[in-house]
């Protein structure tokens, strides 16, 4: 039964037939979508198991710590596949993002053996790695006895993969030769423009191409859309999370940095240059003229929901935030579009800073080999394809998923400009921060300084000079400056 269909799926898994060809064939054979899906999962599992002993840890159990996120949802939806493949039992705790990182810190700092693997941001590994809380995964990735030959480590987008690797030296380049692979990227966000096409058409403005245009367009939208709609949504809470999305993406596009690294490895603040001050001044002006009234309380959630509810005309934030707002039961679903954004008129392309959701292995895991089985499955191609085509597992971190015609078509159909935006900005996409252990201290203070500037408590020049002075003092106190 289904022998022909199985052959077709096998041909696809061997790369002899593309996804479209396989689906056409299955459709012609009269298979329902449900049956085809079941059959495909079964064949995928068999293909995965062909060259590698996935059952080596059968009967063991793992526990995961997860953030409430579509990536986690996609994994949970597909988790039975892993259990069937390996015989490993998996349990998990899911926490909302407000408290998630505190939970991780509490678990790891107490050397708790409760969790084997957990979701993490790449920035967090700059704390967890040197503290000895997580494991360098190179040991497993480079061991053919422990890693499925079809894993495809080279399939990961180079900039994203490198952003999860650091040698632990403050100021050390991410992805350097001596870097430790602290986590495996799972999904990532580039920061670009997501905008309400209907509002843009109503006001008669086109998509801004640089920061100067952004100021003008956002101001016009604020003035002319009506109904209390404001022009541009960006984050503003007193948190590191305010700095890393649109703000740093634009800032880096002007060639500016957070910190200087001297030849002897000493760090110093780099945000008090004239170019930096000019950028800050424009950014502050943009928020004052066209941002939300209560910008200083804005997090990922407010920026996103305002766009989805039609309270803002565009956001300069995570592309996937715009993606999520264009679906579901959002008021503006189907009305959003996407564009790459290079803040600097002289720049040839965007240079988005990226946020990466990744998976890391706890150093206190009781069974690291079994944990690695989960990690390689969860970050493997089959699960990535499943998540990208059946769930909201975007942005994928594997090049082959981005090449998948069905995936691209799905995005192009419902998310106009999304694929093009991704492809244009991907080459310049990476973490633009300097890797160092005071990341959260310095970026939180940077956000607080921005708040003071927007509230006109302090002029931009003076604010940045004070910030640089304070950062240099903290770096010196920590023995880094």
């Amino acid at each position: 039964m289904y022998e022909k269909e199985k052959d077709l799926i096998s041909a696809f898994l061997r790369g002899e037939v593309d996804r479209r060809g396989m689906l056409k064939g299955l459709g012609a054979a009269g298979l329902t979508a449900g049956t085809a899906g079941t059959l495909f999962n079964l064949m995928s599992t068999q293909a995965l198991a062909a060259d590698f002993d996935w059952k080596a840890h059968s009967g063991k159990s793992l526990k995961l710590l997860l953030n409430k996120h579509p990536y986690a949802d996609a994994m949970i939806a597909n988790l039975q596949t892993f259990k069937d493949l390996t015989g490993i039992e998996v349990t998990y705790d899911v926490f909302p993002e407000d408290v998630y990182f505190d939970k991780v810190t509490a678990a790891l700092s107490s050397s708790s053996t409760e969790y084997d693997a957990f979701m993490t941001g790449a920035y967090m590994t700059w704390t967890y790695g040197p503290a000895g809380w997580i494991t360098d995964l190179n040991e497993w990735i480079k061991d053919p006895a422990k890693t499925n030959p079809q894993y495809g480590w080279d399939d990961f987008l180079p900039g994203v993969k490198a952003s999860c690797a650091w040698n632990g030296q403050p100021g050390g380049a991410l992805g350097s030769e001596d870097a430790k692979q602290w986590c495996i990227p799972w999904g990532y966000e580039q920061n670009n423009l997501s905008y309400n096409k209907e509002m843009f058409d109503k006001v008669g403005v086109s998509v801004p191409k640089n920061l100067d245009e952004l100021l003008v367009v956002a101001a016009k939208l604020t003035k002319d859309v009506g109904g209390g709609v404001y022009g541009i949504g960006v984050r503003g809470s007193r948190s590191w999370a305010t700095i890393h999305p649109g703000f740093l993406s634009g800032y880096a596009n002007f060639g500016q940095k957070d910190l200087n690294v001297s030849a002897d490895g000493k760090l110093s603040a780099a945000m008090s240059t004239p170019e930096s001050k000019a950028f800050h001044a424009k950014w502050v002006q943009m928020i004052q003229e066209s941002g939300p009234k209560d910008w200083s309380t804005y997090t990922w959630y407010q920026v996103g929901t305002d766009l989805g509810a039609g309270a803002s005309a565009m956001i300069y934030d995570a592309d996937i935030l715009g993606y999520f707002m264009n679906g579901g039961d959002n008021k503006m679903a189907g009305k959003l579009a996407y564009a790459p954004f290079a803040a600097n008129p002289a720049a040839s392309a965007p240079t988005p800073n990226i946020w990466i959701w990744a998976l890391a292995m706890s150093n206190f895991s009781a069974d690291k080999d079994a944990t690695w089985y989960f990690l390689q499955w969860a970050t493997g191609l089959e699960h990535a394809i499943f998540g990208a085509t059946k769930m909201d597992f975007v942005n994928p971190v594997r090049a082959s998923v981005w090449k998948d015609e069905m995936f691209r078509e799905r995005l192009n159909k419902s998310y106009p400009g999304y694929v093009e935006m991704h492809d244009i900005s991907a080459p310049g996409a990476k973490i633009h921060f300097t890797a160092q252990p005071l990341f959260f201290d310095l970026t939180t203070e940077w956000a607080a300084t921005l708040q003071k500037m927007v509230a006109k408590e302090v002029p931009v020049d003076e604010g940045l000079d004070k910030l640089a002075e304070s950062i240099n003092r903290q770096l010196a106190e920590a023995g880094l400056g």
Partner: protein
Amino acid sequence: MASVTQPGARTGGFRISKRVLPYVLSLPALLVCIGILIPFFTAVVYSFQRYRLSQPWARQFNWGENYLNFFTDPGFWNTLRISLLYAGVTVGLELLLGLGIALLLQRRSTINNFISIMLLLPLMTAPALAALMWKLMTNPGFGILSYFASLIGLENFRWASSPDTALLTVVLVDIWVYTPFIMILLLAGLRSLPTQPFEAAALDGVPRTFVFFRITLPMLTPYILTATLFRLLDSIQQFDIIYAMTQGGPGDTLTVFQVEAYLNFFQSTNVGRSAALLIILWAITYILSNVFIKNWLRLRERARGEA
């Protein structure tokens, strides 16, 4: 013949001597003391260390450097100022409001009892939830309080988003949550006051204001001091409301002790600095408690005619 229990209780088949019994009875209290003191002294030790979880190799005793750094850190002085200001303003206003409401509800009646129970509702709300509720009510776009503000000519009132009004906003939330606490304590105090002085004053036709300032208030002072002390200790340690609404912002407007200590520990993993902040906070609360307790004792002595 009825048996008489001899001193030196027999328990579980063995006799505990009179000398040992007091120690056995005080053992639970001793264990609680130890349970309290171990974390406290651990924090004291941490506060004298350079200790970042992200730099475990750099952990060392630093001769009080964490404390010395505070003297030259303008951020610390801002934290001290804003913590004391927040505590002073909230407790002062809650005391006035709580006393006012308690006086209004002083007479025992069904309606007064019902109102006093209704007024306790905010106290049943978790402060973090209250903060989120107020965050929605003060949203400049759709918040009902923003709408009311616009009716009295306060267009674009930014509540917690503006450095000028952030303190006012969180103080309002604190007042909403905790005024009932003071109200209920003072109401209990008012209703337990002896009636004779008031009856005598009524017979003599003494004006109400005189009765209030010369009889009610002095007799109520121990209750007021108790309520104030409880609230002051709570208020100077405020975290939930401020963090949920503003995360300490805008800028450094609301970086009170607990917010700073929390960010230092959980976000920066700077255990040494976080512990030093909390030890200073402990010292402040200790001093304040002492002042209040001494005053309370003096009042009690005066009431007994010992002073």
